[in-house]
């Protein structure tokens, strides 16, 4: 494995925002993710099923939110450089029809390991003013 696309470790500072993005999730986004991932749980496309299990309606796949947040980190880190990535799913994101759920994603440096030359990137994902992911952390190998 090579390190040709790794971000530079030098100059990184804890608290620094490395990337951010605002994402609109709509029913098309959910169907596209269902097909790409193979996760066809109907609570992600069928309001009747979603409401029958006590949800307010169709919700986004947690893994769509997690995957999209990873793409924001990757915009800075380059592809293939996240070696560890974890999160808890704290709150669901209801996705209206018609319309969209607006999600704000901010990735900042949470910790630095000079010996391993890795950066822990902490990701805040907010919908409706509340965090939907808990302890979303990605460890990135740097050059």
């Amino acid at each position, binding site marked *: *494995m*090579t*390190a*040709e*696309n790794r971000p530079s470790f030098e100059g990184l500072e804890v608290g620094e925002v490395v990337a951010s*993005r605002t*994402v609109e999730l709509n029913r098309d*986004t959910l169907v*596209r*993710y269902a*097909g*790409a*991932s*193979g*996760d066809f749980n109907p609570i992600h496309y069928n309001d009747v099923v979603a409401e029958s*299990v006590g949800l307010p309606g169709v919700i986004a796949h*947690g*893994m*769509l939110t*997690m*995957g*999209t947040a*990873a*793409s924001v*980190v*990757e*915009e800075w880190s*380059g*592809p*293939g450089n*996240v*070696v*560890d*990535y*974890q*999160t*808890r*799913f704290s709150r669901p994101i209801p996705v209206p029809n018609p319309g969209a759920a607006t999600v704000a994603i901010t990735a900042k440096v949470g910790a630095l390991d000079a010996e391993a030359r890795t950066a822990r990137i902490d990701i805040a994902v907010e919908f409706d003013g509340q965090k939907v992911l808990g302890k979303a952390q*990605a460890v990135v190998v740097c050059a």
Partner: protein
Amino acid sequence: MNTEAVGRAYGPHEPYEVTRVKIREFADAVDAYSFAHRSEEAARAEGYADVVAPTTFAVVIAQQAEFHVVTDPEVGVDFSRVVHADERFTHHRPIVAGDLITTTVHVDAISQRGGISMVTTRTELVDADGAPVSTVRSTLAVREEA
């Protein structure tokens, strides 16, 4: 749910062949913009043997393996009451197009508290040489019938 299922393992399952088309489709679905997910040339320029997968692509392979746990009647998961609680990827190397990935899924923990059962699985992804590629940990929360 049956706590005696802890320690159970399923697999190895039939190998999953990673293709360029699937990587591109997944990258489109999670808004991963890099050309290294779409063009072999761009991926090579970044040091990869072929088109490289986005960070959470391994879930495509791991969820197929986890399904064996969820559908095992002896584990006793009511899928209609399942909510995803947490997820973790540890990548031993990036996944690239052309990989043949074999999975084994382990039931690491089952706990019950206050009407909620939690089941934690660990799926080990290995390549055609048997070398580790990714470890995917996933916890599902299952609400018991009222």
